[in-house]
């Protein structure tokens, strides 16, 4: 199907400004659901939308619906602190996160939608000797994997980040793993850009449509009960992050996943003073400055199972306390907003892109606290899995049966949280 939407360009901007911006079209259509599709994706977060997009782009499968119980991008994709990096320890992780990071480099052009990818560099601080050794080890692994990272010392950290206090009394800064092409992107724009592109190739994005029941064996098709009626498909992709356990139960299987709240907050906007991303895994403080000037702050995950999208106040307090010690300049900033998302934590803190015990039902989940950075790569790998029925090289290590086989992809060694 050819492109039906007008392209965004400098000319369209000029033309629209002459019209007082009254002529912009809706970025995606909101059709009524059809009775059946080749592929249905449940969950219009970044991963679901990217899966659909690459099904069309890489595999020519366009008869696709993406069903979303709320509004698209309203899950974790619209709630995260947008850190993008690929400096992981295990080869399988490095491969998919670096694929993803490299797709981000040209995603704006690819989607004709400005996702504001900003490879400003990510500093991952080492504040204990254990962590320092861990990051040196990752750095060595990254050299072999061909991912450009560097282990840097406090003076260099201070050069890159003027507002940091390297002599924190409790956890002094010993060094850092530096990925110069890591950074951030605009979270909503990633969802919106993929959604627009999906709609453009003829896919149906159906919002306010909750999947409430799954019958995988309805005369050779998968039949879904939804809040907007029955929908059938040949292949089903579940891409619902924190709600994966709920959906899997409807299809009749259990997952190695627990859902917990992860929180973030933003400050009032201030003048530019921080042009890198700083991650402090020991104390669970993650900070960057948005283009609007707000300090975007992420914390650690809560400790107990939770579906309420609001976390415990003590985690916010711990995070802010730690960051104030590291960045004394922020001590008097007012915080504007605070929120939580429900993240899907697996046993080895690595994701799942896999076939399931049920034929024609595929799952992509378990990205936990760190799956914004992986949206393009994960969609790419999931689309390949769904199109061919077998995983490609990126997805195959992340199959569900690794938990039975004891073949873990253990990324929790260096940091319990992986933003």
């Amino acid at each position: 199907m050819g492109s039906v939407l007008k392209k965004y360009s400098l000319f369209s901007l000029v033309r629209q400004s002459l019209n007082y911006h009254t002529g912009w079209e809706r970025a995606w259509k909101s059709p009524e659901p059809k009775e059946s599709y080749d592929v249905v994706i449940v969950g219009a977060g970044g991963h679901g939308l990217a899966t659909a997009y690459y099904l069309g782009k890489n595999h020519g499968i366009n008869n696709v619906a993406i069903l979303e119980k709320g509004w698209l991008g309203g899950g974790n994709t619209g709630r995260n602190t947008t850190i993008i990096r690929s400096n992981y320890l295990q080869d399988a992780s490095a491969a998919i996160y670096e694929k993803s990071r490299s797709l981000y480099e040209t995603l704006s052009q690819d989607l004709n939608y400005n996702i504001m990818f900003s490879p400003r560099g990510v500093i991952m601080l080492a504040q204990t000797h254990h962590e320092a050794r861990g990051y040196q080890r990752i750095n060595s692994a990254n050299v072999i994997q061909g991912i450009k990272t560097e282990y840097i010392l406090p003076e260099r950290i201070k050069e890159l980040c003027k507002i940091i206090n390297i002599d924190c009394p409790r956890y002094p800064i010993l060094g850092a793993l530096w990925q110069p092409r890591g950074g951030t992107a605009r979270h909503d724009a990633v969802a919106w850009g993929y959604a627009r592109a999906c709609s453009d190739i003829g896919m149906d994005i159906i919002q306010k449509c909750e999947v409430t029941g799954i019958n995988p064996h309805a005369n050779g098709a998968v039949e879904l009960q939804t809040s907007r009626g029955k929908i059938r498909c040949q292949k089903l992709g579940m891409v619902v992050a924190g709600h994966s356990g709920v959906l899997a139960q409807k299809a009749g299987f259990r997952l190695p996943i627990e859902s917990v709240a992860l929180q973030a907050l933003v400050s009032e906007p201030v003048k530019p003073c921080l042009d890198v991303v700083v991650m402090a895994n020991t104390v669970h403080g993650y900070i960057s400055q948005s283009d609007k000037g707000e300090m975007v702050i992420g914390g650690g995950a809560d400790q107990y199972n939770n579906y309420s999208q609001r976390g415990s106040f003590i985690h916010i307090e711990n995070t802010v306390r730690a960051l104030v010690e590291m960045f004394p300049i922020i001590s008097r900033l007012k915080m504007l907003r605070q929120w939580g998302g429900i993240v899907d934590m697996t046993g080895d803190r690595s994701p799942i892109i896999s076939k399931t015990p049920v034929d024609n039902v595929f799952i992509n989940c378990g990205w936990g606290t760190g799956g914004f950075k992986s949206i393009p790569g994960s969609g790419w790998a999931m689309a390949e899995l769904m199109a061919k029925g077998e995983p490609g090289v990126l997805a195959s290590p992340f199959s569900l049966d690794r938990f039975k086989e004891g073949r873990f992809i253990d990324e929790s060694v260096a940091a319990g949280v992986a933003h």
Partner: protein
Amino acid sequence: MLKLVCPYCGIEADETELISGGEAHLKREGPASTDDDFEGYLFLRNNPKGIIFERWRHAMGCGKWFHVARCTVTQEVFGTYPAQTHKPPSRIMEEIKSRRAGQVNGLNSDKAEKFS
């Protein structure tokens, strides 16, 4: 702030005094068990959206493990009970029934049995 009453010391403890131990009443597998059994025991979880039976430890208090029945959506707590049991006591099930009449059948009683 989540607050739970430790069934041993009777103290209403803030969550800062406690450590969460995840889903309760898992069946512990042994040498004769299959790989599937072990996968279920070690990794697979019900992860319910609704009522959960879970383990907590009064880490900064008496140090003991105990059990909690809680709703993962509203954070409502239906009661706490000691760890020396394979399923929720009837007192707790009654409490849940009295407050959540509709939800008990599907989830709780049979799940409590199944994973006891």
